[in-house]
Structures are given as C-alpha cells and as structure tokens.
C-alpha cells in the first residue's frame, strides 16, 4: 500500500514537472542565421495612364454622349526590386501593388540572413513604367541604397523608407 502510494505520488510529481518543463524548454528560434538584413517599406504607387485613340468604327457603336476620342486606362506601376549582398544577387523580383485591383500601396518585407561583421549591400527599387508612360508630379520612382552594414551576432539591420522618401538604414545601435 505504501509503495503504491509512493509510486502514485512520484508519478503525479513527474507528470506535473513534465508539463511545467514543456512550458519552458530552452529553444533558439533564431539559430538559422547570425544576423538578418530586413527590407521593409511601404511606398505610394506610381499611377500611370495609357491612352489610345479610338477608331471611327469603335466611336460609331458608342452612345453619342460617350464618344470620347481617347480611351485611357490607369493603373499603379509595379516596382522592380534588386538586392545585391556582398556582390551576389540576392533578389531580383517584381513587386506589385496590393489589392484585388492592384490600386493599393506597394509593400516590401524581406529578410536576408547575413553573417556577423561587415556586409556590402546594394538595393534598388524602381517603378517599372511602360514606354511613354508619365508618372505624376512629385511621385518617386526610384529608391536606392548602397553601402556597408556592420552587424553583430543577433542584430537585425532594417532598411526602410523615411519621410523624405529615401531609403535609410536602422540598426540596433542606430535605431
């Protein structure tokens, strides 16, 4: 009887300790990289308008009040993202505006594993405009950053767009 009760108590303690241990298992979720270069920004899209002249036949089938000689379609231009890390192309991609109709801002969120120490980084983010398309006034079409990033183990370097529409680097040391 005493042995059974002792065994029951021990098992209860072991089960409790097991569940408590499961609640605090030492884990390293960031072990796959020494450091990370993170690109994260949101930029307004570059609206572009493509127009063509309607033919006489096309105009004839339209109601009188809708016979505009030009047919225009407006859209937000995608951006080309080029990232070169230590002289090697890390990303070459096209980023489309968000939204079902593609009329929302353009977002970038990418993480690149990097080693501790200095890393050469070159980023170019440029609107892809159709030939002859004209962006509106004051709309930035090119964002670029070139330089070296000095990272310690466990650091995240953040490249983002500031209020002046320039790519800027933030690190734990210079947030």
């Amino acid at each position: 009887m005493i042995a059974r009760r002792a065994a029951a108590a021990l098992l209860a303690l072991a089960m409790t300790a097991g569940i408590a241990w499961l609640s605090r298992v030492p884990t390293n979720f960031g072990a796959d990289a020494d450091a990370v270069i993170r690109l994260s920004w949101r930029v307004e899209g570059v609206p572009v308008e493509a127009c063509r002249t309607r033919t006489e036949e096309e105009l004839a089938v339209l109601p009188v009040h809708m016979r505009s000689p030009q047919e225009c379609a407006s859209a937000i231009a995608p951006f080309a993202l080029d990232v070169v890390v230590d002289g090697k192309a890390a990303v070459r991609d096209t980023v489309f505006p968000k939204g079902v109709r593609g009329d929302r801002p353009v977002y970038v969120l990418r993480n690149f594993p990097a080693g501790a120490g200095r890393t050469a980084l070159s980023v170019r983010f440029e609107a892809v405009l159709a030939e002859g398309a004209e962006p509106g006034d004051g709309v930035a079409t090119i964002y670029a950053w070139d330089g070296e990033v000095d990272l310690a183990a466990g650091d995240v370097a953040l490249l983002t767009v500031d209020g002046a529409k320039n790519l800027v680097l933030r690190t734990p040391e210079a947030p």
Partner: protein
Amino acid sequence: MINRWKAQGGGLGVRALARLDAAFNGLYTWRFNPLYHSGALVVACFAVLLATGLYLLLFYRIGAPYESVAAIDAQWWGGRWIRGLHRYVSDLAVVAAILHGFRMFAQRRTWGPRALAWVSGLVLLGIFFVCGWTGYVMAWDVHGQALAVEGARLLDALPVFSEPLGRAFTGEESLPGAFFFMNLFAHIALPVGIALFLWVHVSRLARAQLLPPKRLLWGTVGLFAIAAVAWPPPLGPEADLLKLPATMPADWVYGFWLPVARAMAAGWVWVVGGSIALLALLVPVWTKPRAEKRPPPSWVNPRYCTGCEQCFLDCPYEAISMVDRDDGREGLVGWVDPAKCVSCGVCAGSCAPMGVGPPGRTGRDQLARVKDFLAEARPGSGDVVVVGCMHGAAGSVGSTAVATGLAAVDGLAGAPASAEAQEPRVFPVGCAGNLHTSVIEYLVRAGAGGVMVAACPPRDCRSREGVKWFNERVHHGREAELQDRVERRRIAVVYAAAGEGRVLRDGVERFRSRILAMEEAPAERDFDVGVECELDEAVP
C-alpha cells in the same frame, strides 16, 4: 483496405488506452484515475484560468506590457506563482484535451450523434491554442515576439489584409498600444467562445459531469500551484524587433509548431496545417462504420410501453422523449430520436415491461439469450456466472463469450474466448446499464451460486451512466429494480476495465470462495430475517 486499417488502428488505440488505464487504476484507483477525467480536467483548468486570469488582469497595462508582467513577476508573495499557475494550467488544459480526444477516438465515440461533440471539441482546442498565443504576446517577451512575428507571417499569406500584418513587427516603429489592446481584447473574448462551445460540446449529454472528483481537482490544482511556487516559469528577455531572439524559454505545448513553420513557406504551412485540421474534423465521417455494422438505435414497442418515463429519465444522451399515444390508449409513450441515440442500451435496463431498447438487446432479447446460455450448461450452486460488459475486462476473459446480439456493438462481435477450464462463464452484455435485472434473477433461480456483474469503472462507462443506473437498480430500488426475492448475497459487482483481466479474475475467485462458504453453511443459508425477528419478539 480502409476498413481493415480502421479496425487495426482502432484496436491498437484501444489496447494502448487499456494498458494505460489499467496502470493508472493500479496507482490511483478508478475513482481518481486522471485519464478517466481528462475532459473534466480541461473544464477545471478553464475555471482556474479564469480565476488566475482575473487577478493578473488587475496589474496588466497595455501601455507597458512587458514592464507590467515583470512587476507581476516581482510579487513573490502572489503575482509570480499566480502567473505560473495560469501558465502551467493552460498547458495542462491542452494536454488533457488531447488525451480526452484520443480516448474518444480510440473508443470510437466520434461519429453519429457524437459528431457534434467531436467537432465542437476540436474547435474548443483551437480556441485554447489561440487564447494561449495571445496570452504569450501579452507578456511581450522574446517568446511572445516569436509567436507574433511567425503568426503575422502566416496570416499575411492569406489574401485578407490590405496591409501586411508582418510590417507591424519589423522594428520601423514601436508597437502601438492599440495592438496590445486588441490582443488583450482577444485574450478576454476568447474564453467567452470557450464557454459557448463547451455548452455546445455537452449539449447532447444528460447530467454532464463537468468537474472531476474533489480530491483529484484540488490535488491537481495543488500540485501545479506547488510547481508554480517552487519552479516559477521564467519571463524571457523583453522583445526587441531589431534583435534576433536568442535561446529562450519556450512553451512547446503552445509553440510546438514554431520550428516547423519557420522552416516552411507560409503557404505550405497553411496547406499542411489545414489538411491536418480537415482530417481531424472529418473523423466523424471516416470512422463511421458501414451501415450494416452500425449498432441500430433503440426503439420503443408501444404495445409494452406503460408511459412510466423511466427510460426518458435514464437516457444518458437525452435521446428519448415522451409523446402522446396514437394507438387509442390514454397517456404518453416513449419515443427515441434515432439522430441522438448512440445505441448504448441503457433504456433496455430501465424498462420493467421490457418494451424499449436496441433491437437484439432489449430485456426480452436478453432473457431469450440467457435461456440459451443456460441450456448449454446449467450452473451449479457453487458456480459463479459473470455477466460482463464487453467493453471491460469481461470482453477478453471467459469461456463462453458468445456475443449473440452484440454483433453491432462497436465491433465487439465475437468476444475473445479462452478454453481454460478455470475461466468463469461469461454472459456478455453491451453495458452493465443495458443489463436487465430479470437476467440476474433468472440466473440465480436457475441455480447459479452467484452472479458477478463485471462492469467498467463508472467514469469509463461507454454509456456514461450505465454503471450508475445498474447499481441503483440492484441496490436502491430504481426502476427496473432487482426484485427483493433475489438474495443480494449472491450478487456482486466488480469494476474491471479492459486491461484489468486480473482484477476480474481475483474478484471472481473471492466471490466464488464466499459462495462456497455460504453453501457449506446451510443453517446460514436458511436464515430468514422475518421469521427470526418474529421469534425474537415472541420471546418474553
């Protein structure tokens, strides 16, 4: 192929469960076996979480989440162990819920009328997980950060949000108080969902047992409270979005998926996770036996029904209602809703005129079977006949386990037989609650020295309340009661779960010895209480 796999899979699960149950019964007795109370333990955990959560809420500040949790942790006299208890018990809730689900799956209590409980149980488990994740994000340590960042990455793979959620966790700006307010709101609102789905979960049960026995309840809470005092869960370093999380104390009950998810593309995580969730939700479909193997629902024979309402009162699944008669007689008649009936047969044991029960397992069917059973070999005055529930130990012990009429009871057709001469003769029934007391009387009157009913431990009864009602019928005069003329000394009950053949054999041996002793003392046997009392009174 699928059916063979189903049979083998179910068999493996049941065997593993039987071994575990037997081991735990040996240590804690069936009354306090935590495996039998896994579902009730989840509810108990929920109650503890509400109580401890209310305390923590008093000190939590959305403007300074980490600092406020650190301040709670600094309360060595209260906050620290209450937070520890909150966290450990939330882990226990998930572990107990998974064990409960495994029990239901292994025992094939997942399909038909039980499908609602299965699906709502899975939803409950899902809500527990989400609630746990929001709790970790509330603390805003590195573990909360890892959960939030990974969760945002996964949610961004869905075409739902106009702006990627993940951008909130890039480190561009500090997280706004609104984020922590929303997170806190979710953490408080989700328990409302838990309460709601808990109600749905037990909605088809009569007299649902929501809490474990007090000793188990307070023993469990006490143990985890001691663990929280002696070994409080650590608060990790504060989240820093411009730092990679280093080694940290992570909760693998709530965060088991993090290492796997981080290594996969978000879309694939949804595909794999969604497939697993879908497979689990469809368990009621793929575990449902083919039509010819499904146990038929109970049925009321209006000719015999007296409208006494006992079956209506006893049904553990609220599948029976009383309706107006349409046969010209006055009063009510029982009606079984086949969509709610799990074919447990408890109604058959409750009906004195034997007018209700699943086809082949009514009181009348049992009496017909017991006649055949006795025709095979008539028991002597020193013999013990075991009337055994086929879900318990009697399902694997016995020499004449002819499962006539049980072919459709959860695949128990043809209970295993043993040729060993010393094995007791077993008269099989689907559940002790299904057994009609007339069968016991018939066996005793046919000359059996004793009748031992081998039932499952009450909290493991597949029919929920079968054992409880059986005891009431034998000892407390509940309809359909065992008649007074049956000598109670010749009736015994042993609780022996599927893996406890030895408990059953020991019980039978002890009972047989008692019966033999009674047979060898004829003066005792002929003792008549009424006559003796009259004689006593007559003496001046």
